[in-house]
């Protein structure tokens, strides 16, 4: 089975940012996304919701370039004031053309 290597970029963020993060990763080139409700604690703590699972995990499968663009954007825009983390690692994907 021929596969290609792409990046899986994971963003964990406070829920209030959900919609705008989805918009932004799409604009930067992601062809799809997967969302999971998660809970968590980190170094920043409090955020603007006492209800609803407090965080979302947004996963996008993208090329290296798009991964870099998303990383830059999220770091610049959200890291200072919001509870957001981002990480990525390579994965093997079948039918890679789908993610372009």
């Amino acid at each position: 089975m021929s596969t290609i290597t792409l990046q899986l970029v994971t963003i964990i963020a406070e829920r209030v940012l959900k919609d705008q993060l989805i918009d932004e990763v799409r604009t930067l080139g992601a062809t799809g996304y997967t969302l999971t409700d998660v809970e968590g604690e980190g170094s920043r703590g409090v955020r603007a919701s006492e209800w609803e699972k407090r965080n979302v995990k947004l996963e996008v499968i993208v090329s290296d370039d798009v991964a870099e663009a998303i990383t830059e954007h999220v770091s610049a825009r959200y890291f200072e004031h919001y509870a957001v983390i981002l990480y990525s690692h390579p994965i093997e994907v079948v039918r890679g053309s789908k993610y372009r």
Partner: protein
Amino acid sequence: MGTVDILLANLFSPIILAFVLGIFASLIRSDLRFPDELYTALSIYLLLAIGLKGGAELSETPFLTFLGPMLATLALGSLTPITSYFVLRRIGALDRINAAAIAAHYGSVSVVTFIAAQAFIDLAGVTGEGFLPALVALLEIPAIIVGLMIAQIGSREAGSWKKALHEVLAGRSIVLLLGGLAIGLVVGKSGLEPVEPFFVNGFQGALTLFLLEMGLVTARRLRDLRKVGLFLVGFGIVMPILHGILGVWVGGLAGLSLGGSAVFGTIVASASYIAAPAAVRIALPEANPTFYLTASLGITFPFNITLGIPLYFTVAQWLA
């Protein structure tokens, strides 16, 4: 009823005791937790129910009586964030951004506090105007706009205004309150009969369950009390008292009944902890959520539902 009776009647009602039970359960680190979905379900139910009931009553009220209270709401909704802001800046010496953020919360309104006030005057055998839910919806918005405007003046880096406003205007509390009101208005009292067992008779019980959850949530906030400092604790009690008395008085002037002005005073006194935080988080990310959430949810909310409401009711009795 004397003032003390009123106070005790409120404190010993199932809804307030359920709230206390929630706080207690959290303090002993019980594993009692409401699923998010139950919280959401109950709040959809309560908002729609209060709207429907208000709408049905409104359908029998002459519309003109609504004008005065409406103007009073808009006026106080614009005034209270400003008074809050100046107190926070002058006396509390908070920075501009945090003061504006908190001011937006205290100008806006807590729907649960409103519902508790409605339940309270029901218990006291008094009724309020049917359009009170409409006033709540009206009061929710201007304060948030004013708060964000204050923050904006002199700040270059504008947050996302449009998103923040949409968050409030199309937020589910406004949609359900006003939607319920519209449905109730159209179908009238008789049209509401088939759904009464569900939306009217079940209301107080569902509210009890909801306040149990509010107790659990509030307790989590109480842990942050130390972080916010003594000034904000005082602010969270004194500001609502002042706003509440002002509200009762202006409500009376605008033509509201005894029950109506007590409830009106309560909503003016109340501080938002759902709509405002979401909007402020988006538009003013630099503001510290610990401040505005702890003040509105950890201090003002429990104060209002336990002592505040009986107080505003007593003031309304004096002024009536």
